[in-house]
């Protein structure tokens, strides 16, 4: 059993989740994910890793409450235990000195891009963080990014912080500051990663995205996490989760990502509509 050290709603619907798992903390790298099972009846839920503390033996993720399983995770309190916290899984993000790197985070991906930005900074890159949300109240960890980036940019849909707009504004924003990245790395919801890939493709900015398909075992056995990359089938859990965003078949990926949507929300409907009975 794995002990919950912290579980708090950091912004509406997003939870910061820290678990005692020393063996995972010892081996985890930026870009990895873990498989979490909230209870004995629970699904195996993949969560991107957002931070860790080797000394304390803890691992932190940010997750969004979407369906039944994440609702169960969102009800956990410090001191509770969960039966499964396995990892680190997936290949780590390749960290080199690329020169100038744009780290784009949105939603739970603000959390998981943070250790990527930190490692890139340590590797000698000029790191620009771009944090994107619908509104300023959905942003978090700004102080952490300030420490590991040369500059942090914000884009909000309603203009309550930084530039008003969305992903499509990034090229403008960058040219305004004379920034031409050697690499863009994006972590976030599927839609955001698809949009940034579409925006950067005509500019020729190489773009790495950290994919988030449905998974079961997460260890290279079941094959549910497959996606088409440059016309070939790849498995996110062992070939990724990082892939070149310009080579992904996004339509196929979006469809696969949604394939269990009805079942995902079904438990919520059941648990919230007791009055029917």
């Amino acid at each position, binding site marked *: 059993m794995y002990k919950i050290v912290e579980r708090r709603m950091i912004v509406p619907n997003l939870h910061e989740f820290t678990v005692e798992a020393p*063996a*995972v903390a*010892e*081996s985890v790298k930026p870009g990895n994910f873990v*498989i979490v*099972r909230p209870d004995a*009846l*629970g*699904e*195996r839920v993949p969560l991107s890793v957002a931070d860790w503390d080797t000394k304390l033996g803890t691992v932190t993720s940010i997750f969004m409450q979407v369906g*039944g*399983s994440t609702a*169960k995770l969102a009800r956990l309190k410090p001191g509770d235990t969960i*039966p*499964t*916290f*396995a*990892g*680190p*899984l997936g290949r780590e993000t390749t960290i080199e000195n690329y020169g100038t790197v744009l780290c784009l985070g949105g939603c739970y991906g603000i959390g998981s891009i943070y250790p990527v930005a930190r490692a890139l900074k340590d590797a000698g890159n000029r790191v620009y963080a771009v944090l994107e949300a619908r509104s300023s109240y959905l942003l978090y960890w700004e102080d952490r990014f300030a420490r590991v980036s040369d500059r942090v940019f914000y884009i909000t849909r309603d203009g309550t912080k930084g530039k008003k707009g969305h992903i499509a504004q990034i090229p403008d924003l960058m040219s305004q500051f004379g920034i031409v990245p050697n690499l863009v790395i994006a972590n976030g919801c599927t839609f955001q990663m698809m949009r940034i890939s579409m925006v950067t493709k005509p500019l020729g900015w190489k773009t790495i995205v950290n994919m988030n398909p449905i998974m*079961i*075992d997460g*260890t*290279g*056995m*079941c*094959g*549910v996490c*497959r*996606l*088409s990359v440059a016309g070939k*089938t790849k*498995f996110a859990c*062992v070939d990724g989760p990082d892939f070149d965003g310009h080579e992904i*078949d996004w*339509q*196929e990926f979006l*469809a*696969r990502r949604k*394939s*269990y949507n009805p*079942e*995902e929300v*079904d*438990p919520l409907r*059941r648990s919230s509509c007791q009055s029917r009975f």
Partner: protein
Amino acid sequence: MSEEKAEKKKIDLARRPMPKQTPWERIKNFDEVALGYPVETAVEEARRCLQCKKPLCNQGCPVGIDIPGFIRSIVEGNFSAGIKKIKETNALPAICGRVCPQEEQCEKACVLSNKKAPIAIGRLERFLADWEAAEGKIEVPDIAPKTGKKVAVVGAGPAGITVANDLVILGHEVTIFEALHECGGVLIYGIPEFRLPKAIVHREVEYVKSLGVKIYTDFIVGKTRTVDRLLEEFDAVFVGSGAGLPWFMEIPGENLNGVYSANEYLTRVNLMKGFRFPEYDTPVKRPSRVAVVGGGNVAMDSARTAVRLGADEVHLVYRRSKAELPARAEEVENAEEEGVIFDLLTLPVRLIGDENGWIKEMECLRMELGEPDASGRRKPIPVEGSNFIIPFDAVVIAIGNSPNPLIPMTTPGVEINKKGGIVTDPKTGRTSRPNIWAGGDIVRGSATVISAMGDGRIAAASIHEYLMSKP
């Protein structure tokens, strides 16, 4: 003439049938299909054994069970002696009695198989194992004095459990690291409840634990810790990390929604208990027209699972003819009884989706059989222009898988073959590195439970020899 002779010697050629749930009952539940021999039937069947002076049956067993020995114990009514005899060489009798392809092994070697009436060795093995469990008096073998040597076993599947069992009995300290949250490997995630109840797997795992084997679940060797890291702590490592990524046909449409690998389909149902959604959180779809592509035991398991999930029509699509089906005859028969439709000599060439990216139809070609190919089976050849389209709302691809990539990816110096499997010396199970052994599907790709156990037995002997030769 031969039958006459049999008459004279009064050889009983009536192989006792296994009581089973009727097809119309069992398609509505996930309970075990084969119900096991009652005591009287087991004794009757055991009495048929000729007790050959030079038995061939045990030579057909990958783990070398003393088959005439345990059968004699059944005849004598000494069931506890019988199960003890089996356990000398087989840690998992309740499992092997159910899922071993006996007709290809011990029963094929039985002299009575010439008369098409081999002793039902598997059923008798199962009988003893179930008898012991029902009695609740589990025989534990004597354990040798502690050697002080430590062995890490990667994977709690049939290979790993066998290695752990053999080495702990020899006095070594054994720790199993299992990547999933439950022990058993393919016995848990792959083989369905109706063929191998999970309670039996749990029971066998508890037994190995009771011998002193330590088990860590949710520990992914290669990721949580590498094999090299384990070797800092352990004197030897056995890798039994099992099956890996499923193969697909590499035809258009395989990434459509509603197209599953058998690994995914069966894992959802067996390991994650998707058939009990929403009590369990992991969902599995319940489509009405299902195609399963392939002809092995995994294909049969998938097709029969689809039947139980309520499909109106389940088709098994296989490119060769019935004679070439690699599945056990018993499983083919079970599938037929349960209403699975066999589309033989049929090759899928394209999967066609609807506007939302869900599978809608499958385009196939008719095949005919040509000359035997490298596998010795007649090669299927497409009949030109025979294309036809069948509607399906789910397709399960059950054409095999490669070995799991995690250990090969993270263990430098271990030789890997073209298919991604670990290369071993078949006589010892040793890899190209001196203190690492491997066996089961990580070596073979996709094989059987018993061959994995056979690999485990061989590797354990070699590991023991190595450990004892070390100062």
